[in-house]
């Protein structure tokens, strides 16, 4: 991993303490606490700390969510070519403990009893998924699956909060968001203090949102080739009439 791409929370705090003209770390722990909060804020909105894990379905067709999981961005299975095939979301799947989930609720996998022969898919309707279905179970901290066998490996891409389960030097943020995190910690460190005047607090808040905007712009920037690739996605060959 490139050393310049990320800075640790520890470095951000030390740099802020120096910036504030403090020559000791007596407020380090308080700042660290604020830093963890700021890290989550930025992980959700700006740095989009996406992690990918492979999880194996257990006997009841579910997987346990990673400790730093906040929200999934894609749940899929890998085919023989190494391409990810996204699963479908099924909000009607029961989450009751012990309830039997049908092995197939997909019309694609298990078509209605009537058959139209070679036209068996006729009238079936869209929105189905041949790969299987999932539903998040927030109470149990799992994702439940149907139409999938135990032992199947699913690929979960999710937004991480950037800190749970990590400690010390492992807690990092993208260099582009370093100033935003520093501005957040400073703002929050004075936010509840009665002795600090409102003007200072408002400036600190404004600075944070400005730094956050800059960080988002930097992180979401793209190069010319990526722009061309995106525009060319619309180009399709078609017969010339």
């Amino acid at each position: 991993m490139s050393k310049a791409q990320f800075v640790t929370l520890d470095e951000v705090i030390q740099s802020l303490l120096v910036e504030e003209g403090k020559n000791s770390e007596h407020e380090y722990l308080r700042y660290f606490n604020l830093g963890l909060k700021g890290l989550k804020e930025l992980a959700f909105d700006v740095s989009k700390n996406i992690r990918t894990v492979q999880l194996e379905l257990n006997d009841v067709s579910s997987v346990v969510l990673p400790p730093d999981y906040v929200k999934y961005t894609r749940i899929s299975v890998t085919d023989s070519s190494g391409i990810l095939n996204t699963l479908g979301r099924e909000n009607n799947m029961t989450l009751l403990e012990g309830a039997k989930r049908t092995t197939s609720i997909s019309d694609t996998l298990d078509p209605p009893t009537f058959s139209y022969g070679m036209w068996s898919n006729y009238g079936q309707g869209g929105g189905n998924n041949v790969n299987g279905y999932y539903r998040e179970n927030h109470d149990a901290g799992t994702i439940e699956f149907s139409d999938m066998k135990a032992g199947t490996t699913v690929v979960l891409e999710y937004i991480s909060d950037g800190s749970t389960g990590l400690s010390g030097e492992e807690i990092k943020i993208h260099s582009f968001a370093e100033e935003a995190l520093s501005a957040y910690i400073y703002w929050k460190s004075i936010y509840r203090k009665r002795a600090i005047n409102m003007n200072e607090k408002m400036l600190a808040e404004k600075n944070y949102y400005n730094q956050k905007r800059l960080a988002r712009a930097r992180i979401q920037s793209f190069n010319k080739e990526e722009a061309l690739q995106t525009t060319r996605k619309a180009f399709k060959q078609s017969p010339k009439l």
Partner: protein
Amino acid sequence: MATTRKSIAEQVLRIVNGGDISDDSPISLREVMVLVDQERDSLIKRDIMDRTYTKSTTTATGELEITGDWLSKFNLPVVGNSYATLKTTPINLPNDVGIFRVSSSDPGYTKQKILVSVDTGVSTPNTTQEKFTIDFSVGPKILRPKYHISFTFNDGSEDKQISLHINTTKYNDSFYNGVNVINAIINNSAFQNFLDLYDLTARVINSSVSDDTGAILDIRGLYEFTISEFKIDGGESASSNHGFTYVVTNAANFSQSNVSDTSLSVTLNGIAYILSYSEEDYLSVSGADVTQNFVSKFSAKIAQEQNISVTNSSADLFFEEIEAEGGFVWDAQGLGEIELTTGTTTSADMTAKFYETRIYTRMPSGGPVNALYDRTVTSSGRRFWYIEGNSLYLYKNKEALSHVDVWLIASSASLGDIDDYPVPADYKKQIITNLVQLFRVMREAEQDMINDNI
């Protein structure tokens, strides 16, 4: 002389008594010493709080800064790897700033030390430089603003075509344009880059042939080289293309008996520190000079990068771990004339491998398990201390630890009469002034001189 409580008190007493202290002085030295303590403590607190919290004053920086001149250091035993008892109560300040720093004490591991002796230094260079000259005698009456200069440079192995576009507009001060064109060449940035690239030097010297009207461009180097096919705007000397007449000479007089490229190379943990004598800008260098040169150039850098101190004594260089960390990998080579003898004075102590000083960070007091901060402590990956009464606790410490070093702003009463008494110089005067003022008020009070036993 170090400042002590006693020395300040004596000074106060002398002023109050108007000279020597007599036995019948109504104020005793002990009494003044107590007041000195109180005055110092109150000054420290006022000073730090003023800096931080006072508004609308020029001294208020809004920073909770503890300057080093108030601090005292104590080495304290740790009981059960858990806590140390402070010998003195620190001054009460927000965020426990009274205790400034806590770290583990040096466990006394043996530090690796090596010796590099420089047996032979460097002799005076006696190289005769290679020389190329171009002697301009005649030039055109009117100088063009731009000329194209080209020549072939051979560095002893291959030919390089050099091409310069010189601008003469800033270099037309001389009446004779041969001189002007040399100045334009020598100040041309591309020509200077060429000199840098090939380690050459150039200068303008007076022409012996045409003393009054011309000048010589003299180029020198510490190796054999030649310059040929020198042309201006594609024309040779005396060409009607440009109107300059010049004589090109490759002196071919390079000679060398001493090695002119000598260096001392010391590699520490894979990073090489090379002291070079290669540009012949030196005279004879003894072994002691070499070691001193090495220390001057690298000791600060090596100390910061490698945790190794570099010192010298005559022709001996010593490399020693600043903090024992299980030793370092090293190699020393003398290249060219320098000859070395190397050896290990003290071997590395493998007990110290992976050791580093443990730094403890302050956390609010919250008992052995701090409900408010416990999770944050775990996430931070740091070690913490907190204070309760005059005990300094190491939060959830399970590591073996015999002593800690503690830097704190000690309350004055806890310092001995003749102990070093940390007071900045300007505050010493303030303490004395305040106390003298206090005693003046005391002396002005009317005394009952009649002892009537009532």
